[in-house]
């Protein structure tokens, strides 16, 4: 049902001599140089990427970066100067006018920043707009529109007019209008940017809920990186009409392609994006539980390595419990012979699932005296998060791995993320 969108070397030049600007662009001139030489403004500059079926793909960028132009190329509200846009392999730029209208009515719909509801129509008629343009009979289109309105929880307001609704509700109507014809592709042009922060979060949840009910290919334009990180399966970052980087939110935070992206993501709330598993480090002592070993060798190991805590795992690497030098000594006190590690477990240390967002962990880590163990879904110990690790992560002058960031003007260094290489 959902469709794949392929964007291949798409250019958009605004002006009367697009060919000349394209020629200069192919020679490697920058957008500013071309504007200076020819007066042609480049909206989109050699964009190439694929939007997979059923994903939420966020296009990010500052105003003027060409993201709104890019999204309008996808339903041909703007015609590209060069390049191809394929929807499930179909080149939409080859469509006739009639076929294009058919495509817009049935397969692709759009939500606008300004809501763009028709003020002379009721909410229900607005939602039914696409169906009405498609020539669907009145009874059927109103029923379908009513269903779409119910999906966003506004069925009571069907007979009201758009200006009687608050901004958030108007955008819900805009969303219902986009959903009414049950399209495979949803374009959202800064759809939530005009809303209050709280309403915006509500709407993002709404969108994620709708996406879970039925997967559509959603292209979401935004200038708010937190929003992009929150809802995006993948993110493309645009600058001056060029796509600078495409990747998952983690990839972009972890390995920004250049100084621009790094600057861009500086303000993002990384704690909401990253999960416990992303920052867990294997820097602590791991002790395997086995019949031949017990508390005494474990205590010796801790003392030799001068560590306070040991994390006990089964031979297949599953997390069992945490011991400390004190708990081991206490268990061994007055005891002869080998003693199982289970007797020395520190009671109040809870393992954290790897999928927990970091901002939910801050309290637990602050209160715990030991670094918290992080376990995968199958129970394997992934590593631990110490207070130190967390503070480094939250410090915006270091990257997600705790390494100091290069200054914004420095050349981007492609540094691999070093896992478990850092002393505590």
């Amino acid at each position, binding site marked *: 049902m959902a469709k794949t969108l392929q964007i291949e070397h798409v250019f958009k030049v605004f002006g009367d001599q697009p060919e000349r600007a394209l020629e200069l662009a192919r020679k490697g001139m920058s957008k500013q140089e071309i504007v200076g030489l020819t007066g042609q403004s480049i909206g989109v500059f050699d964009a190439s990427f694929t939007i997979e079926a059923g994903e939420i793909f966020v296009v990010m960028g500052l105003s003027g970066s060409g993201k709104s132009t890019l999204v309008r190329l996808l*339903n041909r*509200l703007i015609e590209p100067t060069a390049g191809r846009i394929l929807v499930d392999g179909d080149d939409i730029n080859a469509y006739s006018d009639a076929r*294009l*209208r*058919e*495509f*817009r*009515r*049935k397969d692709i*719909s*759009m939500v*606008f920043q*300004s809501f*763009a509801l*028709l*003020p*002379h129509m*009721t909410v229900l008629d607005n939602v039914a*707009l*696409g169906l*009405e*343009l*498609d020539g669907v009979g009145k009874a059927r289109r109103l029923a379908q529109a009513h269903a779409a309105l119910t999906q966003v929880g506004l069925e*009571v*307001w069907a*007979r*009201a*007019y758009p200006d*009687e609704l608050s901004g958030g509700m108007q955008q819900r109507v805009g969303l219902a*209008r986009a959903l009414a014809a049950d399209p495979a592709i949803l*374009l959202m042009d800064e759809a939530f940017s005009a809303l209050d922060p709280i309403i915006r979060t509500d709407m993002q949840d709404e969108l994620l809920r709708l996406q879970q009910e039925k997967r559509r290919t959603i292209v979401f334009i935004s200038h708010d990186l937190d929003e992009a990180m929150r809802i995006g399966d993948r993110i493309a970052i645009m600058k001056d009409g060029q796509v600078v980087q495409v990747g998952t939110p983690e990839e972009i935070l972890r390995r920004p392609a250049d100084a621009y992206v790094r600057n861009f993501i500086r303000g993002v709330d990384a704690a909401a994006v990253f999960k416990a598993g992303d920052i867990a480090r294997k820097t602590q002592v791991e002790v395997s539980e086995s019949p031949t070993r017990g508390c005494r060798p474990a205590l010796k190991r801790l003392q030799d390595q001068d560590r306070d805590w040991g994390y006990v795992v089964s031979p297949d690497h599953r997390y069992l419990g945490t011991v400390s030098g004190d708990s081991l000594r206490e268990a061994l006190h007055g005891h002869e012979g080998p003693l199982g590690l289970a007797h020395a477990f520190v009671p109040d240390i809870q393992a954290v699932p790897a999928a927990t967002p970091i901002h939910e962990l801050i309290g637990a880590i602050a209160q715990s005296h030991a670094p918290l163990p992080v376990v995968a879904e199958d129970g394997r110990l992934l590593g631990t998060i110490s207070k130190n690790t967390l503070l480094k992560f939250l410090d915006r002058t270091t990257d997600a791995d705790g390494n100091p960031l290069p200054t914004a003007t420095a050349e981007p260094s492609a540094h691999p993320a070093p896992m478990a290489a850092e002393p505590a």
Partner: protein
Amino acid sequence: MSDPATDPWSAAAQATPATPASGADPWSAATNPVDPAALATQANPYNTPPPDAGGDAWLQGASSAAGSGADAAAQGGAGFIHTAPPTDHGFALHQLWDGSLPVQDWINRGLDWLVLHFRPFFHALRGPVDALLGGVEAALQYPPTLVMVGLLSLIAWQLAGGALGLATLVSLLVVAMLGIWPEAMVTLSLVLTSLLFCVIIGLPLGIWLARSDRAQRIVRPVLDAMQTTPAFVYLVPVVMLFGIGNVPGVIVTIIFALPPLVRLTNLGIRQVRPDLVEAAKAYGASPWQLLTKVQLPLAMPSIMAGINQSLMLSLSMVVIASMIAVGGLGLMVLRGIGRLDMGLATVGGLGIVILAIILDRVTQTMGQPRRDQSVRWFMRGPVGLVWRLMRGRQAPAGQPVAQAAASKARPAAARTQPGTARPAAQAGG
């Protein structure tokens, strides 16, 4: 037009002997701008009777037109063109700046040529206008005065609400009491016919201008000219091409009243929010759907303002049009001026003002967007009264009232409290 009291030409002819100093006659005034010879000879028109030039030839031609038809009028018109001073037809370069360029002569010759070759074409144009005008006029004048007063008031009530209906009733009764009802109906038919043609021409033209910047660049100066050129300038060529009577009156009125409708239609469509146009396109609207479902409805207040302005300008042309044998209130004013009969002129003027105010208020009210969909047009006004009576007879009494109440309560409740609106909506739906 056989009744001598309403025949403007016999009336004009009567008016002429009443004012022996024919320099004060409006007909010669009409010829002044186009006839420099007449202008020169009438340096002091109130004291010296004009010689045989322009004015008289014109009057003779015009008065004979009443009997023998429009051809005579054109001959008369053509006759006075030939009285223009002979000019040197050769063209020298120095004429470009020394002011002796024979533009007047060129225009006269051009018009001459046009009249000679295209009169049948322009006369053919008269047909449909004449038929429509005659129909409207007959329809307005056929019913007895009081029936018509009631009918028009009911229409005003339906279109613009009860208060305006009542005001219309009172105003029209005043018109009837002033004894100018037939004249008012002639004027009304003229104005409404002009308006109809203005809408037929102006609406598509305005839409075209809104879609094409090039068209707008070309047509705008034409509209400027139509609005600012004194009516007297095109009165003469219109008469020469179409003859005299109500039809050229309608055409002259259209020339004057068309521009605001075109401009405001153009403006209204251009001012539709671009994001709404974009949204309609994004949902697959064809150009026709875009126009009918988005642009025209949203431009409607502006278009109605244009129609309102066209109506007002048509009414302001009534007196000038009466100079080319258009009957009605304008002729009363003209006759009043000619006879220095202030009473007659004032009564005619009062009729025009009353008509203007009624038409203005009704069209203005129609221009305001109405949005309460639960009350459809047929549920309002006198039609609504009949509708309710008929429903009351069909359905058990009280049901339509309850439904109306529910549908009224719904948006009101929904606006304040969505929680409580839910049961109300269920009860209503």
